[in-house]
């Protein structure tokens, strides 16, 4: 098997890479949903009229795979409303009217972390979830037998067009990252840490090498990855950093790895040092419709509208507004949708940028097959799905698809390949559930 998996060349459009992140003033109101993570929504811990400060807990984790939610501004709880999420579901959200003071909750204090259990407890308390991806609660990743962990892998690969918030974090928050690495390595006895960054991010690589040199408790290495899309997918990153293959349907820990996004790591470091939970996010605000693209440090719950206003407003009507990058990002349900814990970018794309060709018949050119990093056959999967051929879908290993979007991106017929893959996975899952129920 090749040293590197296949990838594709996507436009970079990293317009914001060389500008420092700008902290935004407290918005008038923030809307903080109780569901910003995988797993059950948090339980409301405040009611209308309550006074809160930055860092006051407003939602209590509900179950093992859930996360606490904290107020990101100081002020008064104005109302509790239902918030439409990108996946179509709704969850309660706390609307806080800011008093503009941004005063910090006095009860916050740095946690005492001495061993694995206290680390897991602290992370659980912090409300930190995977900030680059689906919002998987971070403490769960460390709640394993430390003997199973060979590598801690830091994801510094930021392969999506436009998005630069992770890169900016690596350039400016090395100290937080170093603190987090030292604590985690000490508590879990991890000897090897690998930071993966694409080779076109020279400055970030240099910054991380300097950071790595300051860490003494474990071996920290910076691996430069090819600058093709995708590098940030967990399975791709683990393979490129360690040569290990995560089997289909398994997690990084099954290959002895824990993967943490670099911004998540910096947030962990800040929390361990100060006790300030996850209340703000560095967000890349870009896209052709945005007047002044830049990285903005915004309180969680800030509306996208306010974010755009802070960046000089929109100079053109966007056709699409996205959470995240254009390859894997999801469309924002409406303009007053808030910045979430796992929002790394908000893009307002113009018609020209988001232009997709007409969908026509598959010409069997093989571009999708030859560009899939995992060697899947998306055209065949689509045909199998259209005839609801479950055996064929299993044979084609559709469950291995990471939905990176390479196949759809290169398809000259613009077939909805990623969509068909998602539907196929859903179809197989439902079928398995049905069969399990029968027995």
């Amino acid at each position, binding site marked *: 098997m090749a040293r590197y998996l296949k990838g594709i060349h996507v436009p970079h459009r990293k317009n914001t890479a060389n500008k420092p992140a700008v902290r935004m003033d407290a918005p008038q109101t923030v809307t903080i949903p109780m569901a910003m993570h995988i797993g059950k929504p948090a339980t409301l811990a405040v009611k209308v009229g309550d006074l809160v400060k930055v860092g006051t807990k407003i939602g209590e984790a509900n179950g093992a795979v859930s996360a606490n939610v904290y107020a990101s501004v100081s002020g008064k709880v104005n109302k509790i409303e239902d918030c439409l999420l990108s996946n179509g579901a709704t969850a309660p959200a706390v609307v806080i009217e800011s008093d503009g003071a941004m005063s910090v909750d006095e009860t916050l204090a740095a946690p005492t972390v001495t061993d694995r259990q206290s680390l897991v407890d602290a992370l659980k308390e912090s409300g930190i979830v995977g900030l680059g991806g689906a919002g998987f609660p971070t403490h769960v990743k460390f709640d394993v037998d430390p003997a199973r962990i060979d590598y801690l892998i830091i994801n510094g690969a930021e392969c999506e067009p436009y998005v630069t918030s992770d890169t900016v974090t690596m350039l400016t928050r090395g100290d937080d990252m170093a603190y987090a690495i030292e604590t985690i390595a000490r508590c879990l006895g991890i000897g090897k840490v690998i930071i993966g960054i694409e080779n076109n991010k020279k400055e970030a690589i240099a910054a991380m090498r300097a950071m790595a040199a300051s860490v003494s408790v474990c071996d920290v290495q910076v691996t430069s990855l090819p600058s093709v899309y995708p590098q940030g997918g967990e399975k791709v990153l683990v393979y490129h950093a360690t040569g290990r293959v995560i089997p*289909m349907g398994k997690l990084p820990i099954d290959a002895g790895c824990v993967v943490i996004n670099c911004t998540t790591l910096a947030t962990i470091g800040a929390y361990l040092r100060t006790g300030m939970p996850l209340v703000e996010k560095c967000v890349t605000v870009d896209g052709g419709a945005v007047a002044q693209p830049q990285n903005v440090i915004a309180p969680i719950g800030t509306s996208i509208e306010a974010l755009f206003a802070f960046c000089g407003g929109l100079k053109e009507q966007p056709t699409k507004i996205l959470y995240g990058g*254009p390859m894997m990002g999801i469309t924002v349900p*409406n303009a007053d949708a808030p910045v979430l814990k796992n929002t790394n970018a908000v893009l307002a794309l113009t018609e020209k940028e988001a232009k997709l060709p007409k969908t026509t018949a598959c*010409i069997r050119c*093989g571009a999708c097959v*030859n560009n899939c*990093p995992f060697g899947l056959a998306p055209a065949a999967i689509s045909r199998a799905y259209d005839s609801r051929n479950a055996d064929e879908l299993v044979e*084609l290993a559709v469950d291995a698809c990471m939905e990176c979007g390479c196949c759809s991106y290169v398809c000259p017929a613009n077939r909805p390949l990623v969509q068909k893959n998602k539907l196929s996975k859903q179809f197989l899952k439902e079928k398995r559930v049905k069969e399990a129920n029968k027995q």
Partner: protein
Amino acid sequence: MSSLTKLMISPHIHCGRSTGGIMRDVLIALLPATLAGTLIFGLRALLVVLVCVAACVLFELLFNLITKQAQTVGDLSAAVTGLLLALNLPVNIPIWQCVVGSLFAIVVVKCLFGGIGNNLVNPAITARVFMLVAFGSLAIPAFPVDAVASATPLAAEQMPSLMTLFLGNYGGAIGETSTLALLIGGIYLLVRRVITWHIPVVFIGTVFVFSFFMEGFDAVRALSMVMAGGLVIGAFFMATDYVTSPATPWGKVLFALGAGLFTCLIRYFGNYPEGVSFAILFMNILTPYIGRWTRRKVFGTGGDK
């Protein structure tokens, strides 16, 4: 700001390639061969080309209209089929046969099977073979301007010189004689990444090696076998048809190897002097099986450590 964003599945950007763009590249790549054919065989060659292209486009247009399907002539694939068909015909072919051949290619081979992407065999090649069988079209000797005045050189006693074969000034189908013009077009397709090297290189290479042995290790005669007849146009333009050739690199290699071997077997041991069309047609039929055998291994499904 209103709720203006369309809820759409990722990815939200696209590389910009389209079926129409690819077909346009193929048409451009065939221009040198069309030009060479016109220079060598005269203006009637151009007439054959125009009739075939127009007929193919018209038949697809009409078929879509009659069956009330979305119009597909804009993707230029019918024009490509027409051009390829014309370039595979002798210059003195009766015009009515061009029309019937186009009808067969577009309606029988392509549209009735469900249109672009669903045909099992290459429309232009199948129509060529159909015309050969039905009308004996290709048995009619072309009348080259000043080269050997018999059938295609493969059937002739005396091969033209290598230079003649390279430039194309000898008898044969309109677009197949000039290796130079075809190579220019082929390289254009490679540069534009419309095709990969696998099929043309392996196909032509196989024929060369086989011929080298059969011709008593005579490299010049082996090279003549490569340049004469429909091999170069077949290897670059017909065998590389997406729909009817395998998608993966190894599939392509296997496909081209088979096509090369069959071409030689027919040329040396068969009844027809020219085997390229039959060989490609035969491999078209095997393509779904080759596709299955050469499926890429999916990452994470074992054995890939």
